[in-house]
């Protein structure tokens, strides 16, 4: 596994953000605007918990890049 990303074969079924780890960088909201946003205090907000297509691709990028490793991706069962 290279730099924390998931193997590309499986599709992302579900996205979770751990707000206790979140450092409010805003990285996910700018790299994956279809999936994440920030609230007024800067905390991560999940907009699309079950992203598909381009949103799923964005979610992968945001998860790999998250400075606090606060984004979890789950494959389809």
């Amino acid at each position, binding site marked *: 596994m290279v*730099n924390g990303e998931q193997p590309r074969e499986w599709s992302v079924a579900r996205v979770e953000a751990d707000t206790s780890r979140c450092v*409010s960088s805003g990285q996910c909201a*700018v*790299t994956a605007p279809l999936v994440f946003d*920030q609230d007024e*205090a800067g905390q991560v907000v999940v907009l699309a918990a079950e992203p598909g297509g381009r949103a799923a691709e964005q979610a992968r990028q945001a998860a790999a890049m998250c*400075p*606090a490793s606060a984004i979890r991706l789950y494959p389809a069962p």
Partner: protein
Amino acid sequence: MTAPAPQLPFERPNALELAPLLARLREEGPITRVTTPAGDPAWLVTRYEEARVVLGDTRFSRLRPDSEDAPRISESALHTRPAPTPEEEDREHTRMRRMLTPAFSAPRMRRLGGRIGELAASCLETMDEERSRDPERAVNLHDHLSFPLPVMVICELLGVPVADRDLLRGWSERIGALYDGADGAAAMAEFEAYVAAIAEEKRKKPGQDVISDILAVQAEDPSFTEGEMTRLAVGLLFAGHETTSARIDLGVLFLLSDTGRRDRFVADPEVLARATVEEVLRMSAPGGLGLTRYAREDVTVAGTAIARGEAVLVAINAANRDGRAFEGPDTFDPSRSPNAHLAFGHGGYYCIGNVLARTEMQVALTALFRRFPGLRLAVDARSLRDHSERLAGGLGEVPVLW
């Protein structure tokens, strides 16, 4: 007897390529001994995985400990400013993030996007006028877009007069200089006095800006000193434009150094901007040092023992081109996904201005290539050098024609 540790910054062939020595050291091991520009010993981390581990490890602090024997990185005023205790450093950092996160958040930056677009359009208008005076003469992209756009945006955000931008430019260059410490210290004193005077005005008449927000927090908190306030404001003004200017210059240079690459971007800038900017962030490498850390206790990294108090430089430029983490690491490929580069760091010190920088870069590249799709370099891309004698690096000159 072992050979002396090589001294940073290493010799680079041009602004697009890294120092060959960095690649060699990265092949030899993840972490190695180097000599800082100030002549002191430090560790240099060159591989991606280890870079990410160090940046995410809270046993490292960012500021030089307040001790005579602590290694010095350079004479830059940003490296030599008085260090607080670890507790004070953490407290200041937590306060800074809590205070500034909303102002630099993604929703706020989205609302700012239109304004950045207007400012970019005005920059390009001036650039076009400049060329119409003499169509044969190259125009310096740095002076017309890469420098003015980020500086205008950060001035508006902080509530500092845009008319003072040349003052800010001069101080920023001088406080970032790695070698002339006396001049850097004088520039820092002038810069801080300038910010203090602006703060004095804003205390009487607060505005809708970040400095006014900071002052409102400070007014409620007796532990928030005047020195901390001016350091923070200077830091924001410096980091808010120097680094982004360099990245815009380098981004344009990467796109123009290959006509096919430029044409692919020109075909659909709005759609391609996001991924192109991430690849620019991965490959562009302004400055030759990396991110500074000091060990707060003894730490072992990849089997190497780092003693408490030692300095660690994380060479994010080298890590971003580590073949263990990126396929074809020296190839500019905006389609790589994910592209988990370390241009903004990693962990708790991740750049608070990353959304702003990304937004500015996306807007700048899109607007530039929409308006001038036939833009080209007036010189060989490989003739341009990075100002590695400055902390933030950067080009200063990108001559273009269209």
